[in-house]
């Protein structure tokens, strides 16, 4: 029954194997490493470190909002600086870098059956430029005037005026320089990820056999390569406005009774450039999460993913649609009603492919052999959270509903649910899932379950009440909510409650970090394939995978990534590189 002739319908190798760079010293092996796996860990560690800064900033903000006037050091200026840096760090320096630089680097070569990224040296440069971008960003905390307080969208004209913290100091200059560096660094990595997926796959690995994780990261990277240019251009132009006194974004404006030298620029132009980047950015973060969660659900429910092809096309479709919806972030900036109509329509159309994905996840679970492992818990939590956040997106996508809600806490609750909590739940699930491959040891189960329940329930206790506050009309971006007549006393209590919960959830993350470090040495030995998964990264001869990933011969792929519980097969999973036919596979022909 098992036919192991290597040909077996698999064409001969098309590409000569490229000799890998072999490190000669500790420095080139662990620091200036060209191995995508080491680069991935470097990316992840840096992103986590800067993410911790953003977490602390969110605590400081919640201290101020929940208990106004209690903490003297949180001035309104400081509050705006916290909010700006929190947003920018979380969206770009944590989530984008972690999903693409971290998971992308680790998983793409392993999952497509490659020895490394196609250009490891460029890949290494990518990380070091990213690190430089992070350092420039961090340096703004110590610069005169502190970091910029322009809000994470950096809207001009206020972003470079003296009334905004950092506007006429170093803050905004360092922020924009850091973004420019980040984009240069990301481009180097991103080109690598895309070319590796397109041109570096192993024999038998067709595009339609790629695990959905790879599809998600691949599509997100393509989008990032096309969306970041807009942010790059906007950053360069604003930097020129600030440093050279040009007027790209600055209209004629006076400040403190004094006419500024700027004249004739268009602040709206910045908004268009920013959101042409900014909306795809939402999906740059979300698509890798979609992909990863599909694999987590399939593996831990021991069942093939439902509607693989639809899942792929939904990812690609969401990616394409997200380039034509950007102005829904600008309803309140004013636009021709027909444009509002257009952008509202395209926005709501995105609900179709996303709904397909949600249904397919649920149908994958349907009658599955569900193991409530920690990765599975996070995956389930993601589905619920994503549906919740997505539904409020339907409210905000409509012009008439968005206009009254736009400046309220409702928006804060919406985007934190849909692009904050939901992707970060996937990040956690993915870390619990792949940590055994990276380190060879399992994360501690008890601490993990504690981390999951506190994070999941806590996130809801933080962001659900925020929807109510938003509907009540409580504004966002306000440094103090004390004299809000629209807020009832119970609303004030709710507000303080949110702050307390934020601290508790933040504390759970410390437990998680402890678990990450502790388990490197003390975790239970995992073995090569603890989840009994099908994809190639679990079939490596060594765990953690050695330099070059697959030993002497690259694996040959005979099947898709989702042959779980195939009737007639001996095990309930059939690895992708296992030859032969075992029974009725559900792989699309």
């Amino acid at each position, binding site marked *: 029954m098992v036919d192991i002739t290597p040909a077996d319908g*698999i*064409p*001969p*190798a*098309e*590409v*000569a194997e*490229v*000799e890998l*760079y072999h490190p000669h010293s500790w420095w080139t092996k662990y620091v200036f490493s060209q191995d995508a796996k080491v680069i991935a860990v470097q990316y992840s560690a840096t992103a986590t470190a800067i993410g911790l800064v953003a977490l602390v900033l969110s605590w400081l903000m919640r201290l101020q909002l929940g208990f106004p006037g209690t903490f003297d050091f949180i001035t309104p200026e400081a509050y705006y600086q916290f909010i700006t840096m929190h947003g920018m760090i979380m969206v770009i320096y944590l989530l984008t870098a972690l999903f693409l630089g971290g998971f992308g680097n680790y998983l793409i070569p392993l999952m497509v059956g490659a020895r490394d990224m*196609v*250009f490891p*040296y460029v890949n290494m440069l990518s990380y070091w430029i990213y690190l430089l971008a992070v350092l420039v960003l961090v340096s703004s905390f110590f610069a005169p005037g502190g970091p910029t307080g322009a809000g994470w969208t950096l809207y001009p004209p206020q972003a470079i005026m003296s009334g905004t913290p950092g506007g006429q100091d170093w803050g905004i200059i360092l922020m924009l320089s850091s973004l420019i560096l980040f984009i240069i660094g990301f*481009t180097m990595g*991103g*080109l*690598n990820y*895309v*070319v590796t997926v*397109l*041109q*570096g*796959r*192993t*024999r*038998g*690995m*067709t*595009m*339609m*056999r790629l695990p959905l994780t790879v599809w998600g990261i691949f599509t997100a990277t393509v989008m990032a*390569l*096309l969306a*970041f*240019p*807009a942010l*790059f*251009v*906007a950053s*360069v*132009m604003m930097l*020129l406005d600030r440093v*050279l*006194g*040009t*007027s*790209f974004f600055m209209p004629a404006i006076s400040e403190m009774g004094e006419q500024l*030298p700027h*004249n*004739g*620029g*268009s602040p709206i*132009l910045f908004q268009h*450039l920013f959101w*042409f980047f900014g909306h795809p950015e939402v999906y740059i973060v979300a698509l890798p999460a979609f992909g990863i969660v599909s694999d987590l659900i399939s593996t831990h429910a021991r069942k093939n993913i439902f509607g693989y092809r639809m899942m792929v096309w939904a990812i690609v479709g969401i990616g394409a649609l997200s380039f034509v919806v950007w102005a829904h972030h600008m309803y309140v900036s004013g636009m021709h009603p027909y444009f509002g109509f257009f952008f509202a329509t395209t926005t709501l159309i995105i609900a179709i492919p996303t709904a397909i994905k949600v249904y397919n996840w649920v149908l994958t679970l349907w009658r599955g052999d569900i193991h409530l492992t920690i990765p599975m818990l996070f995956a389930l939590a993601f589905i619920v959270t994503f549906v919740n956040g997505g539904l409020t997106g339907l409210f905000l996508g409509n012009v008439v509903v968005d206009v009254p809600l736009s400046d309220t806490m409702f928006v804060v609750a919406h985007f934190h649910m849909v692009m904050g909590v939901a992707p970060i739940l996937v990040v956690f699930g993915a870390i619990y899932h792949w940590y055994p491959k990276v380190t060879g040891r399992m994360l501690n189960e008890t601490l993990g379950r504690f981390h999951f329940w506190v994070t999941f329930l806590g996130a809801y206790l933080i962001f659900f009440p925020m929807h109510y506050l938003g509907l009540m009309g409580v504004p966002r971006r306000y440094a103090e909510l004390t004299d809000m007549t629209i807020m009832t006393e119970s609303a004030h209590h709710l507000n303080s409650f949110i702050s307390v919960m934020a601290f508790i959830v933040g504390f759970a993350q410390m437990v998680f970090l402890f678990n990450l470090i502790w388990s490197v040495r003390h975790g239970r030995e995992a073995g090569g394939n603890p989840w009994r998964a099908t994809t190639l990264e679990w079939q490596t001869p060594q765990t953690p995978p050695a330099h070059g990933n697959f030993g002497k011969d690259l694996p040959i*792929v005979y099947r898709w990534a989702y042959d779980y519980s195939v009737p007639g097969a001996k095990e309930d999973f059939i690895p992708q590189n296992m030859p032969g036919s075992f029974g009725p596979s559900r792989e699309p022909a």
Partner: protein
Amino acid sequence: MGETLTNIGQTEPRPTGWQGIAADWSSDQRAFKNVSWGKAMMWIFLLSDTFIFGCFLLSYMTARISTRVPWPNPSKVFALRIGGSEIPLILIAIMTFVLISSSGTMAMAVNFGYRRDRRKTAILMLLTAALGATFVGMQAFEWTKLITEGVRPWGNPWGAAQFGSCFFMITGFHGTHVTIGVIFLIIVARKVWRGDYDTGRRGFFTSRTGRYENVEIMGLYWHFVDLVWVFIFAFFYLW
């Protein structure tokens, strides 16, 4: 029927046309058959770079159509006085001619590269680099002239301040691309001259061996930079 060259020197038959595209994308290993990693990476980089220049040019157009102050007339601003008469856009015309010519020499270099004619390839690449350097030199001359006439990023004597801003930003960004191209042309020309692609000498940084295809990849970048200039020429100088 087209064909794919495999690792072991065999050719595999492949369908052509739309069926070929579908077959390639549904095949294993490579989506673009017979396209090397380096070439694929350069194409995708150029796609990304297109978006950067696209955003720059769209921003410039937005600034130009939305300003309420008259836009300086490029024909007059970029005119040179030669032999007692003002000739509009003459310097830009020469610059454009030089850059387009450099695309010609680059194409010839690629051709000779594939014929393994090291000497001619290197000479043509250096000629391309020289033409590129000439272009940057003339751009420096143009910048100097405009600056002495009082054009600044924040203002100019003739009209909308955004004229100078866009001019310096867009030509500066393009000139940087040309300069980077010149540097890499010289590096690749040196490798060709020395015979690195025949002897399999490894790169200083990457420790990888190169191939004569690198000349073509270099050419892709160079032609792209020229093409971008055509758009800048049309939208900034001729509008």
